[in-house]
């Protein structure tokens, strides 16, 4: 296998594993902050129990996000040193600002959030949760700005093959950034909402933690019913933006080989990259034009308009795009159905719905991964669109070293993160137990409280989990 492919596989693998955790923790931190604020306002115990419960899961997820994220900041140099040289003046500061504005904030206040239950007044705890949530979203801001610049570069000048910044505002807010940021953040909040909803539904199915489960169901369904349709609009706008700036990507993900009239919407096909045509195609006439140009007879650029070595491979992006959109439609259906049942007062008793959402927790993650497959593969053969080709961007590293490190990553990540997800499952089965420590903030109780809560947590961990 050649070095470029190995380097690409390694980055694809490490970032795909990594994105799962931030995608979850961005939403989860906001959820925990909301719960703590609600607890402060209402004084209701179950908000606090839920906050503590999800904070434990957050801690495990965040740790996995941190350790899988650190390699990324070094892979630019180890595997992509030419990319670092050409784009480093621009990408570097954006990543640097992520570290300065976001990483330290979230990592530091996570300590207060996690370990402050007995040492910290509730308002500070809630503030820490808000800061962690702001940190995770800020992180997304900078990383998506950097990625968007690689998709739609702006505000730079080229000198001797190296990109130099000319206008930082134009760089940060490059043309695709607002769309990508809102699309990804919404995706992250939807993903977490679905997990929360699924956990609530599973508890209700076995009659466990009913108060907490209902709160989770209500919050999850509400988020899904509102953000699902919003995401559809954002996705549509993002698509139009891509059509404007990266038409080859759109042509590829629609498997639109030739521009012979109003575009069909291809629902299913087996794209044949050699013959440059679709086999077994099922398509709706005019619908492609309608979606992409918002007009009945609009023309859409086709793959043949681009040189063969300047357009993406079709198969991956074609299918990944359909997976993402399909899941999106499913999420909207689940959200609206849930809202309808809620209105009728049947949300907590409709068992088929509880079962359906109980199984739907992975959907958000799959949609996010599919979406990234589309946007990253759709940018090929460029690593920085129109500036640097991917096969020109690698490091002078031996194939053996690349293959070795890739193997090591697959093995280590495979073992460690599987176990981590197993532990999260274990914690979810264990459930939001234990009394709230509403009185812990009283100073005179401080010295004894840690012992008490630790004993309690030992008790908890030995009790049998409900069968979910």
């Amino acid at each position, binding site marked *: 296998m050649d070095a470029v492919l190995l380097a690409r596989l390694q980055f694809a693998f490490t970032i795909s594993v990594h994105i799962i955790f931030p995608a979850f923790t961005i939403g989860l931190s906001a959820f925990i902050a909301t719960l703590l604020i609600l607890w402060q306002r209402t004084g209701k115990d179950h908000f606090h129990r839920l906050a503590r419960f999800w*904070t*434990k899961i957050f*801690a495990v997820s965040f*740790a996995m996000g*941190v350790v*899988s*994220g*650190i390699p990324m*900041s*070094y892979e*630019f*140099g*180890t595997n992509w*040193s*030419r990319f*670092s*040289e050409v784009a*480093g*003046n*621009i990408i*570097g*500061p954006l*990543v*640097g*600002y*992520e*570290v*300065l*504005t976001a*990483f*330290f*904030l979230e*990592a*530091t*206040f*996570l*300590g*207060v959030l*996690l*370990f402050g239950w*007995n040492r910290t007044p509730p308002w500070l705890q809630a503030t820490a949760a808000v800061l962690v949530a702001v940190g995770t979203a800020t992180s997304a801001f900078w990383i998506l700005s950097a990625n968007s610049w690689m998709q739609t570069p702006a505000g730079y000048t080229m000198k001797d093959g190296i990109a*130099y*910044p000319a206008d*930082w505002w134009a760089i940060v807010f490059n043309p695709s950034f607002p769309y990508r940021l809102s699309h990804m953040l919404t995706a992250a909040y939807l993903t977490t909402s679905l997990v929360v909803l699924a956990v609530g539904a599973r508890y209700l199915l076995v009659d466990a933690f009913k108060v907490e489960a209902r709160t989770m169901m209500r919050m999850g369904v509400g988020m899904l019913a509102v953000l699902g349709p919003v995401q559809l609009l954002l996705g549509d706008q993002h698509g139009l933006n891509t059509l404007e700036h990266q038409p080859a990507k759109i042509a590829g993900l629609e498997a639109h080989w030739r521009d012979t009239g109003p575009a069909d919407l291809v629902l299913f096909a087996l794209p044949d990259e050699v013959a440059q045509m679709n086999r077994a195609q099922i398509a709706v006439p005019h619908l492609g034009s309608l979606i992409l140009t918002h007009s009945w007879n609009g023309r859409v650029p086709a793959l043949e308009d681009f040189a063969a070595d300047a357009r993406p491979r079709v198969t991956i992006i074609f299918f990944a795009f359909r997976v993402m959109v399909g899941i999106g439609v499913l999420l909207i259906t689940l959200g609206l159905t849930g809202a309808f049942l809620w209105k009728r007062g049947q949300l907590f008793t409709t068992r088929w719905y509880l079962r359906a959402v109980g199984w739907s927790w992975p959907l958000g993650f799959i949609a996010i991964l599919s979406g990234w497959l589309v946007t990253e593969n759709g940018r090929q053969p460029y690593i920085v669109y129109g500036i640097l080709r991917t096969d020109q961007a690698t*490091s*002078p*590293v*031996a194939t053996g*070293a690349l293959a070795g*490190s890739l193997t*090591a990553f697959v093995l*280590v990540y495979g073992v*460690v993160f599987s*176990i*981590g997800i197993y*532990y999260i499952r*274990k914690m979810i089965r264990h459930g939001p137990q234990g009394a709230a420590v509403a009185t812990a903030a009283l100073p005179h109780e401080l010295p004894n409280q*840690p012992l008490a809560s*630790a*004993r309690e947590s030992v008790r908890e961990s030995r009790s049998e989990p409900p069968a979910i």
Partner: protein
Amino acid sequence: MSTLAGSAYWLPVICAAVIAFSIAMYVVLDGFDLGLGILFAFFPEESDRDQMMNSVAPFWDGNETWLILGGTGLFVLFPHAYAVIMPALYVPLFSMLLALVFRGVAFEFRWVAKPHHRKWDIAFSAGSIVATLCQGFMLGGLLGGTRVAAGQFAGGAFDWLTPFSLVCGLGLLVGYALLAATWLVMKTSGSLERRARRSARLLLVGLVGFIILVSVWTPLEFPGVAQRWFSWPNILYLSPVPVATAFFAITCWRGLAGSRFFFSPFYKAVALFVLAFVGLLISTMPYLVPPAITIWDAAGAPSSQRFVLIGVAILVPFILGYTVFVYYHFRGKVRADEGYH
């Protein structure tokens, strides 16, 4: 470097100071929590290990972030050095990152896995030891010189592996363990604290031995280093470094004796680390990748450096502020069984 004037001279110098600062922060902060992993091997009792973990659990995420700042800082401010160093240190770097995966997740997994947490104790300890060794190898490999041709790394995958880098790896192992032992003296009580004191004295002797060894070895092996330290009048200006090192080593020893001082051994150990780091900077300046690339050769676009330095100037004080706040918030000795788990 007299041809460079004004900001062309100073901007890379300021940037180098920022990188040096974040590396120093990383070494001190993550040093003591990596060191706890090293000490884990010698403290088999579960309750001891729980306390050791809890003493650092609120901080480790923040500590490790300095590593990301160091990596991205180099990427941002000195892209040409970054593009050479990363391929040159490929093997130890990736080994370190993977080791950090194991020890990082162990912080959380260990509690969830209880009572079947032994494997995560091992992961924490082994991960910390491997990560530390790799950091030492990288340091030694970098000091030993990197082959560069046409601005790119031109050496082999194992160039970093030399007797000198092995010594650096072992030295760092002892040093981090010392930081951790003095941290435990400060943060724990009872028998754990007493045993930490004993280990710390042993480790202090070991670290001083390694400092002497490296201080003798580097001038003998690298003529530039000898020139830097022992030529007149440098020897006069630089003499405070070894004198201060000796002073802190002795006061650290005295702080560890008896049982009156909880804080001072840790601070003295930190001072030793900072001095050793300053010594290394003196030996290598102005090279980022000895013997080929200086900070001026490696500097990125001035407008990029400026853009980041503005952020650093505004944000790093905040970061330091809330870092201090969190350390203050969780000050004092760890109570047995404390934690959120």
